[in-house]
């Protein structure tokens, strides 16, 4: 895989205190770890730096904390960039990105559904893939899969 040269974006100046760390990543412009409290400002700054396309939002459950990863693409720089922020497991809340990237809508719904991450200010945070009323968040590490032998399906007529 050919690594493209990253566009020289001065992230520390742009993001200021919100920037926690800037990690390199193979084949991309690297990963920006930011403070979750400044999420809105970071999104705006990154968007204005040319990363107009939101590829995906994924949540990872690290058991002791949770991580949200935003993957972004810049048409000008032809490169990917990752934003990542750590959230406490007991209160995983981050501001929504829908105001900056409208496409974040379904990604956030899925992240909430699967990894139980609350997005503050999301217009429509309801079930997308699972049926309404489903109580679990399957992609948490505590959710274990079972062989169907363990599973008892009760189908009865009333």
């Amino acid at each position, binding site marked *: 895989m050919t690594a493209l040269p990253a566009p020289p974006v001065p992230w520390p100046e742009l993001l200021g205190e919100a920037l926690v760390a800037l990690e390199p990543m193979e084949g991309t412009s690297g990963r920006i770890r930011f403070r979750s409290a400044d999420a809105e400002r970071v999104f705006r700054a990154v968007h204005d730096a040319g990363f107009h396309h939101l590829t995906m939002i994924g949540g990872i459950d690290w058991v002791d904390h949770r991580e949200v990863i935003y993957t972004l693409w810049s048409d000008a720089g032809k490169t990917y960039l990752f934003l990542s922020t750590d959230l406490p497991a007991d209160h995983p809340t981050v501001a929504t990105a829908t105001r900056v990237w409208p496409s974040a809508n379904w990604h956030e719904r899925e992240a909430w559904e699967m990894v139980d991450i609350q997005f503050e200010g999301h217009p429509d945070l309801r079930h997308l893939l*699972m*049926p309404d009323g489903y109580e679990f968040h399957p992609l948490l590490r505590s959710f274990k899969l079972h062989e169907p032998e363990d599973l008892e399906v009760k*189908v009865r007529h*009333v």
Partner: protein
Amino acid sequence: MSAAPETKGVRGELPGAGEAAVPFVEIEALRSREFIPAAKEALTSLIAEQGQSKLIRPVFNWAGRNSLFPLHWGLACCAIEFAAAFGARWDAERFGVVPRSSPRQCDLMIVNGTVTWKVAHKLITLYEQMPEPKWVIAMGNCATGGGPFRTAYSVVPGVDKLVPVDVYIAGCPPRPEAMLEGILRLEDLIRLRKE
């Protein structure tokens, strides 16, 4: 099981999040696995009474088995092979198999793919909308027993948990030949059936 016995409807129950079993999907006003074959039996016997004549019955049997209209829908991967079977190379219409979009006009439901709990009650609704006599073919491993997704939290491990299945077709996905073979086996079943 923590399901309250007075709750209406059918529910598949799944263990979740390391706790005891908790209700997962609720399907309201459905018939049980026992009820559907019973209704089927009653109807077929009714038909048998009407067609007591030994001359007429084989004719209707011949007609029924040679003109199976499957429901035109695609669940997952097998749907593509289902479509391929209607393509130029296999041409399922040779056997009089013509997919219809409305369940009212179908005799045969080919469950061509993974059945999830979310679609389960819609599948049963469609099955009940089909007029008697009707048959179900579970096409592929997912419909037969969950296939590679049998461990998943959202997948019904086999469509026979929901509706009575007449023919199972193995394969992931089955080739179109296998699907046609399944339909021919179903025709054999109908031929041998004692009404």
